[in-house]
């Protein structure tokens, strides 16, 4: 096991949120690999019932069971668990009351369906309860079973409600076992052992959602983590060229000569091709300018930031390890 300093030493529960489609599942999976690297044991948890982890690791659907799904660079294991609220409730009733049979009856009655419909807070407390149990779990020798748990969490708009279970169930259950259970969950998610990371793109809506979500998180007293800017495109042109291109200025003459030299076009045709390529450059320059503005907006968040490249061929297993390496290189794990 290596002992490099990372930005999140001491954190055992990494919660990954973000606007839908920004890459939460991808980043959570890459982060789990990165944290496991060098001989650690990490649990990757999924809660939205979408089997996203199975898809990304190219596996058949995961059961409600912790099982090893990947080996990290330099040794280290990633386990995965797809939490099903119904199963989590059965666990819970068994664990605290030895009432598995009653639990089954509740399931048959449609009570879980009911509870998740009318009071998502109940569902959330079951799911976060199962997750924090894995965080706290110790082996016989007293050591924690997992070095870290990574939670592929609900999107930004729901994250504070999801984690702030005590608050959410308070209106519904002021006393009693659910309340006690939610206090236990709270103890973990509000502690320095937890960090809530945001995944965003350099686009207006995801950035806005990140800032709004973060403000909400902070006012609920939940611990923010880092910002993962995903799908970052490398800029191929020098900043000075981009700056003038935004204003519509570009050396078409030089480009025309270059196209001729490359044997791509000649004569008047070269000038026409150059003109149309300039259109592409100007658009790219505008896009880059907007991305810079969005980066600047993220400064307000005042959190550590990591950038992950846009993988040209989408995310396959090799791509996932590439993202994990990038996460490690930037000190996030």
């Amino acid at each position, binding site marked *: 096991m290596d002992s490099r300093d990372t930005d999140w030493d001491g954190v055992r529960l990494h919660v990954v949120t973000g606007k839908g489609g920004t890459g939460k599942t991808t980043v959570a999976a890459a982060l789990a690999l990165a944290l496991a690297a060098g001989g650690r044991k990490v649990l990757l948890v999924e809660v939205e019932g979408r089997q996203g982890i199975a898809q990304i690791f190219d596996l058949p659907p995961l059961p409600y069971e912790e099982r090893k799904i990947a080996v990290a660079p330099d040794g280290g294991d990633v386990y995965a668990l797809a939490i099903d609220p119904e199963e989590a409730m059965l666990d819970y009733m068994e664990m605290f009351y030895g009432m598995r049979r009653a639990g089954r*009856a509740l399931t048959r009655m449609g009570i879980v369906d009911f509870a998740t419909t009318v009071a998502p807070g109940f569902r959330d407390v079951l799911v976060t309860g199962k997750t924090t149990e894995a965080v706290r779990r110790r082996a016989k020798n007293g050591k924690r079973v997992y070095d870290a748990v990574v939670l592929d969490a609900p999107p930004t708009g729901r994250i504070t409600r999801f984690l702030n279970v005590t608050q959410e169930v308070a209106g519904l259950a002021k006393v009693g076992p659910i309340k006690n259970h939610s206090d236990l969950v709270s103890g973990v998610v509000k502690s320095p052992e937890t960090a809530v990371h945001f995944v965003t793109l350099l686009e207006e809506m995801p950035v806005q959602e990140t800032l709004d979500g973060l403000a909400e998180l902070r006012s609920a007293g939940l611990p923010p983590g880092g910002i993962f800017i995903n799908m970052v495109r490398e800029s191929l042109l020098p900043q000075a060229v981009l700056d003038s291109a935004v204003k519509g200025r570009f050396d078409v003459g030089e480009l025309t000569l270059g196209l001729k030299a490359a044997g791509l076009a000649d004569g008047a045709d070269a000038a026409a091709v150059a003109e149309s390529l300039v259109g592409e450059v100007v658009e790219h320059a505008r896009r880059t300018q*907007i991305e810079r503005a969005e980066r600047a907006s993220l400064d307000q968040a005042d959190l550590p930031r990591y950038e992950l490249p846009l993988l040209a061929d989408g995310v396959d297993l090799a791509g996932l390890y590439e993202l994990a390496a990038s996460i490690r290189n930037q000190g996030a794990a």
Partner: protein
Amino acid sequence: MKKPAPLDVDAILDDRGTRIIVCCGAGGVGKTTTAAALGLRAAERGRGAVVLTVDPARRLAQSMGLSELDNTPRLVHTAEGGGQLFAMMLDMKRTFDEIIEAHADPERARQILSNPFYQSLSSSFSGTQEYMAMEKLGQLRRSDEWDLIIVDTPPSRSALDFLDAPERLGRFLDGRFIKLLTAPAKAGGRSAFRLLNAGFGLVAGAMTKLLGAQVLKDLQTFVSALDAVFGGFRQRAEMTYRLLQAPGTAFVVVAAPERDAMREASYFVERLAEERMPLAGLVVNRVHFSPAAGISAARSAAAAEDLESKGEHELTAAVLRLHTGRMQLAAREHREQEHFVSAHPTVPVVQVRAMSEDVHDLAGLHQIGELLASGA
């Protein structure tokens, strides 16, 4: 790829028989933008349009004067020919409250509105937003004040949620567990569970242990109050469903040229056919084109490499690298659309190109409207 028929947006907007347009698709693909752009274009073509939006981007909302959720359509724009664009932003909780107030006597309404379970259901049930959007659509349509209603659908995780949610909420209120909870009250208010079988006694015991007696009581009060009010809940959902099947309705499916979004679009198209709901066509939004498409990715990459190896024309080489990336992206997007087109060859399609900037004002919406009408 076989070329699909072009989606003729103007023909749909100009047809006075078109009374409802529903924009649906996966999250983040551009449903809200498309709905608003169609509304503006409809107004520009002389119609009186109202756009019911669910979650506009902040700047777009501000530019349309929708700074608050207020559940009433506001005039956004009057076009030269006299056509008008109104817009409103859905307030889901308020829409729910209004249904309760309209159907319950004041005392019962108060009981429901202050019940913690109602508050939870009306503000966070994952299907409530979908249901309320449909409810609001029904209200607008029944008022018959609107020439054309354009609905934006909620940002569900799946495009189908909005078709299923009303049914799910209805089924839920008719559910077995709810029936069990309300049964004692109906049987004359005798002690909660005595009348029921042993199986339910076990459940009641477990529930009491799990939730505490107060919770169970709140729950029963809530359920029986709601049950009385929502006798016709399912009928309401069915009424809206029929509205969606009516010939004056046109579904516009929106997708981005990416795998997940195109797959969702496919499911949706199939589902609409099953439900006999009228599909107008598919909008593929945020498509990347190249103005220099004559130079293929391969040629561009080879030329860039050539220049780089000679150490000449550095700028040109960089531009060619940029162009290579663009052509690769365009090719990938094209492939993602191919599946859809071969599976649904008769569905009309229009592509809208990706702007370099977000769409956040009327000028931007106007531009999207033009692209929707002309393609590219």
